[in-house]
């Protein structure tokens, strides 16, 4: 079967000349062999997904192809011609455009100004505004978005998907033959993903080669004809999408099966009393929130982007407090109006955006770990009495507990890997002896190996009687980790599912196509 597959692929490659070809690319960074002799061919009119764990070399390869890095050895061929780009701009002018993961638009400038930045029409340094807007309209027409997006609109007023369309329009305006997209769907809602995939199909139909880097295999399988898997800087293989399965691809990525990396679920006897309960919680983002969280269990909150998952976590933790409703912590009615209230009630919140909300990157590991516990101490007493003792004993103890390995606790947090940073954030909350943990996307942007470690650790917390509320947009993670699943939709809890539900159950509930949901809706409307 695999032999047959290879033949098919080779046959197709022989028929057509590749638009872009990477030949035995090797790139070494200090201490790391990022790419080791990787060869790939990208055909016209084809969507080619490149997948792999974090650190597998995908981004490095794409940056080389797009001219942001220069390879140590190997060559790039564009339509059979050897090329070497020394700046992304050169690649762009030759028809190779890249859309980076983070947005590259100027929020305070218009769509037209962004598309033609540094290529504005006009003579003698003057700017021809009419021409600029006219050109923008024709570029937007090419991506069939001229009705949707006005060229004079400010980019900050566009939705994420619209911004992405503008980026694609910008890329196309260079007359691109090859379009590289780095995780384009990471922050899109389902409908937005559909707009994007439709657009990619149109580009494909025009004979462009689209290179699609993604962690989301569902989309990869929906959109790509060919999937290449990188692992540790080497090409594991290229397969045709129609001849493979997500399980097989994951196996290629990690060298083991998908199911193996989740710790066993909790048993009924592990679950204790209700430690957190909210009844009829309401605020600007959330409606009629009722939930119970038990000691020793992992409750996952699933739902589409914008369904109110993060808002739920923030409301429980006092960032955007509930306006009405009763909140009980460990059986007592409490009022959480700010994060310090929540911290005093022994809650911990591991935020989605580690860099922005969870870590002080320029501070050493030690101070990051002690940050929260220090806020609970009187200002001066801590430094003089407990300060020295705590940092000598508390920090190593906590680090051991979460298996954080660092040569010194004086290392600045910014130099740690994503997984280790997450462990620092975790120890920070363990230091306050928190017994209710809220995790918002705990494994986002962390490679598969480290993910497994984080999963084990979260499960380990429950063994110590800690209650975990976990938010995740990765359905396999939700299914692999939860003892119960809450599904959110439009700021409400759409329903609860037991462990061992299927992805389909969750998606049906999250998109609102279940009978239960209609019944619920009617009931709540009746109440009003």
């Amino acid at each position: 079967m695999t032999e047959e597959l290879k033949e098919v692929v080779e046959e197709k490659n022989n028929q057509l000349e590749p638009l872009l070809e990477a030949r035995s690319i090797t790139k070494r960074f200090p201490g790391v062999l990022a790419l080791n002799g990787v060869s790939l061919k990208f055909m016209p009119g084809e969507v080619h997904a490149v997948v792999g764990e974090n650190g597998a070399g995908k981004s490095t390869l794409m940056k080389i192809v797009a001219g942001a890095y220069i390879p140590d050895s190997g060559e790039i061929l564009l339509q059979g011609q050897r090329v070497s780009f020394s700046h992304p701009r050169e690649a762009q002018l030759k028809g190779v455009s890249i859309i980076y993961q983070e947005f590259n638009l100027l929020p305070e400038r218009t769509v037209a100004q962004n598309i033609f930045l540094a290529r504005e029409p006009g003579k003698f340094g003057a700017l021809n505004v009419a021409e600029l807007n006219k050109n923008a309209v024709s570029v937007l027409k090419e991506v069939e978005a001229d009705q949707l997006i006005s060229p004079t609109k400010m980019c900050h007023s566009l939705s994420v998907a619209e911004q992405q369309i503008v980026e694609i329009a910008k890329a196309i305006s260079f007359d691109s033959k090859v379009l590289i997209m780095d995780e384009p769907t990471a922050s899109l809602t389902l409908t937005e993903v559909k707009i994007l995939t439709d657009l990619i199909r149109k580009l494909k139909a025009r004979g462009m080669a689209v290179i699609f880097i993604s962690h989301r295999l569902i989309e990869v399988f929906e959109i790509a004809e060919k999937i290449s898997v990188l692992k540790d800087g080497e090409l594991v293989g290229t397969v045709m999408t129609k001849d493979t399965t997500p399980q097989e691809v994951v196996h290629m990525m990690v060298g083991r099966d998908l199911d193996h990396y989740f710790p066993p679920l909790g048993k009924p006897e592990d679950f204790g009393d209700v430690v957190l309960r909210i009844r009829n919680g309401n605020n600007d983002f959330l409606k009629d929130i009722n939930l119970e969280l038990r000691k020793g269990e992992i409750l996952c909150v699933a739902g589409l982007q914008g369904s109110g998952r993060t808002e739920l976590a923030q409301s429980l933790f006092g960032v955007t407090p509930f306006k009405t409703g009763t909140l009980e912590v460990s059986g007592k009615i409490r009022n959480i109006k700010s994060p310090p209230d929540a911290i005093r009630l022994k809650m911990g919140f591991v935020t989605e955006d580690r860099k922005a909300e969870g870590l002080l990157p320029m501070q050493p590991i030690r101070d990051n770990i002690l940050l929260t516990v220090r806020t609970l101490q009187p200002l001066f007493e801590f430094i003089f009495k407990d300060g020295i003792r705590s940092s000598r004993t508390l920090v190593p103890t906590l680090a051991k507990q979460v298996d954080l390995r660092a040569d010194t606790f004086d290392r600045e947090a910014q130099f740690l890997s994503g997984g280790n940073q997450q462990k620092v954030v975790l120890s920070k909350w363990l230091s306050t002896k928190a017994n209710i943990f809220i995790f918002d996307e705990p494994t986002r942007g962390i490679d598969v190996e480290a993910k497994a470690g984080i999963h084990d650790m979260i499960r380990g917390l429950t063994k110590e009687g800690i209650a975990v509320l976990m938010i995740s947009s990765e359905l396999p993670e939700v299914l692999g980790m939860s003892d119960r699943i809450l599904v959110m939709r439009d700021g409400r809890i759409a329903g609860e599912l037991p462990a061992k539900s299927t992805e389909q159950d969750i998606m049906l509930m999250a998109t609102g196509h279940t009978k239960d949901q209609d019944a619920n809706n009617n009931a709540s409307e009746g109440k009003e």
Partner: protein
Amino acid sequence: MTTSLASENRLKRIFRSANIPPVYYFLIFVFLFSGILDQFLADGQIFSNPLIMLNIIVRSVALGIVAVGQTLVLIGASIDLSVAFTISITAVMSSYIMQGKTENVPVAIAGVFLIGIVIGLINGLIITKLRVNPFIATLGTGLIIKGIINASFSNYTGSVPQAFEYFGYGKIGPIPVSIIILFLVVIIGWFILARTKFGAHLYGVGGNSEVARLSGVRTDRVLIGAHVLCSVTAVLSGMFLVSLMRSGAPWVGPNGFYDLNSIAVAVIGGTSLSGGKGDVWGTLAGVLIFGILSTAFNQLGVNPYLKTVFQGLIIVLAVASYTIRSKKEAA
């Protein structure tokens, strides 16, 4: 009736879509407020006198010219704290070179513009090539200039010939020359920002330097250019001041607080300190707010410190209103 309703809705829509920046509301408020004070304290003498009204603008000329330059560097996510001393060195050097003789005027003008261009180049090069934070870089160059002036001149030096006073006191018809020059500078500033590639690139550099670089903008050149333009506006302000004072003194720049005030009026006008956002019209409105306050308060004999309190309040309120507004937009 339906038509009037429709037109009312249309007006509302225009009003909303025009999205008038807060600075203009502040300008109207300050104007009305001063007018009311005037009615009560001086029976409307000030606001009924066109000469005083013109004087408001004349008083704003020095600050207005340099604020346009400051707006450019702020949009580029930079800052220029050396403008006050650039103004001083211009005032001192031009009257020193002129020595009251009309034939020396061209040399003096060429000389001070050259000094301004050199200061701007040095500022820009230190910031882009040595990668020194712009605040520190221009604080440093400002101190260097201050030291040089103080070591060389201690009091009024030289004088300007009568012909040169035309800049400060001359009129074309009823309109003072200085006002015409201020508006020319503002229009040139607008043209540079809105109608040249340099302007578009400057917004890019200030908004996100890396995005601009990857798009092919020569970021260093653009920022150096902005600094040269800013220093040149400081030179123009200095020349205006020396033509008013008839002789240059080393303290004209720092005593007028042109460094911090030029930043303040730009920020009141909606220019972002973090770059990538702003325009000269807002800055002009900010300058007029300061001008109305100081003229009205002076004429009315109100405690001058109260004026400073007002200026401070307006800076804080204006910036707060921009933040609130952008939050609303995001929501």
